[in-house]
């Protein structure tokens, strides 16, 4: 299905996990360093360099554009690093984020609360994704280089719905479908002996 920015409430409500969506319109880029600055401004109750209301943020730090090209390679970066800032941005009216990889439970809850969705773009398909970008312009934090905030004009930018506004999660459902439990017994036995620092 096609959707257009700024995002309308009824459009967001109809998005279902696993749906392929082609986005057209304006979106904004921001990753780690830009998020840190945006969150700081929200904490200080200051204005942001752009209005978040009904907008989409794309987690990407594009490679430099060649002369006469609208943008360089621009695939998604891993989203969990932005989790700590995301609820604050959603509270200011942000309606969707694009990245790759799972969001935290806190972010998923915040997406339900603020009626916002999370899309995944294909990580490492950055040359392919660049074709959907027609125009790019740095609008804030130019000193951050690849991490500056850019306004992108996109046409049919391909994403997949990972989290809808109802708390569903495509990663959890997709993986569960293909997990094979052949050696689970063995694994459980050894789990007792090995102390993993990052259990799931």
């Amino acid at each position, binding site marked *: 299905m096609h959707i257009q920015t700024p995002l309308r409430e009824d459009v967001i409500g109809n998005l279902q996990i696993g749906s392929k969506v082609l986005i057209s319109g304006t979106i904004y880029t921001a990753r780690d360093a830009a998020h840190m600055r945006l969150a700081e401004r929200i904490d200080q109750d200051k204005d942001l360099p752009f209005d978040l209301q009904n907008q989409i943020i794309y987690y990407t*730090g594009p490679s430099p554009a060649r002369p006469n090209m609208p943008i*360089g390679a621009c695939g998604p970066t891993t989203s969990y690093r932005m989790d700590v800032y995301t609820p604050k941005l959603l509270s200011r009216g942000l309606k969707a984020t694009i990245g*790759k*990889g799972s969001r935290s439970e806190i972010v998923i809850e915040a997406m339900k609360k603020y009626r916002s969705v999370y899309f995944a773009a294909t990580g490492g398909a950055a040359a392919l994704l660049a074709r959907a970008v027609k125009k790019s312009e740095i609008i804030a934090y130019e000193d951050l280089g690849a991490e500056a905030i850019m306004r992108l004009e996109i046409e049919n930018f391909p994403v997949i719905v990972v989290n809808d506004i109802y708390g569903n999660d495509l*990663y959890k459902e997709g*993986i569960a479908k293909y997990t094979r439990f052949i050696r689970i017994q063995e694994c459980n036995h050894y789990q007792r002996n090995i102390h993993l620092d990052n259990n799931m």
Partner: protein
Amino acid sequence: MDTRIEIRASEITEKVAQLCVDANFNVNSDVLNAIKESYTAEVSPVAKEIFTELLENAKIARTCQIPICQDTGVAVVFVEIGEQVEITGGHLYEAIHEGIRRGYKEGFLRKSIVADPLNRVNTGDNTPAIIHTEFIPEGRIKITFMAKGGGCENMSRITMLTPADGREGIMHFVVETVKVARANPCPPIIVGVGIGGTFDYAALLAKKSLLRPLGTQHTNPDTAVLEQEMLERINNLGIGAQGLGGRITALAVHIERYPCHIASLPVAVNIDCHAHRVKTVILGS
């Protein structure tokens, strides 16, 4: 008899610059083959489509000279230096760094390095590189360049197991590392495992194991079996391409082993994404 082989620093710079660009635009045939095979083996339609996208992406990158991935990586450079080699007109490390500066500028590659991990100001030229050197009893220099992405590097882990943990302990740690990482490192991934040595050396072994071409078997039959078993277990996790569910989570598991202390069993897992960018050049005889 003078057996010295002279290699100019400027030649090293030039070759390194070429490697940076080549690695980021041109996917190696071993990776392309692995993705094609994965497409055939995969049963999930969503994952199949991802593989198609990756092949299309590789084609666009090659023809349009645009990076495969916007994260053009931290430059990791492995140098094997012949003992008979004399570098003239400059110094090895500076020659490599100048090559990276040039390659990343001329290739329109992203500069992803900050000068300090806490203050985080970009160096603007993607240096410094991480350089590993090793002497070899020959008259040549072999330079292997790897553009290592941050997303997959972040999902890597290291642990100090006990000798009692053995094979199954290693297996469990590696599989668990991939399980925890899920979609984050851009699967299908390549899993590099270093077993033995010391805390630091295990990590280096893990990274070095990634340099072996995909689709090749380890020369040690016992390691080859372990790699196969690990790959099977990882693919049973069901994570699939981009973590959307599927049978192919990893394209390969590569293991390197090294002697270690009687008390120790270090295990390091270095994950690489499907944008597996490794290129090599040999200078001298």
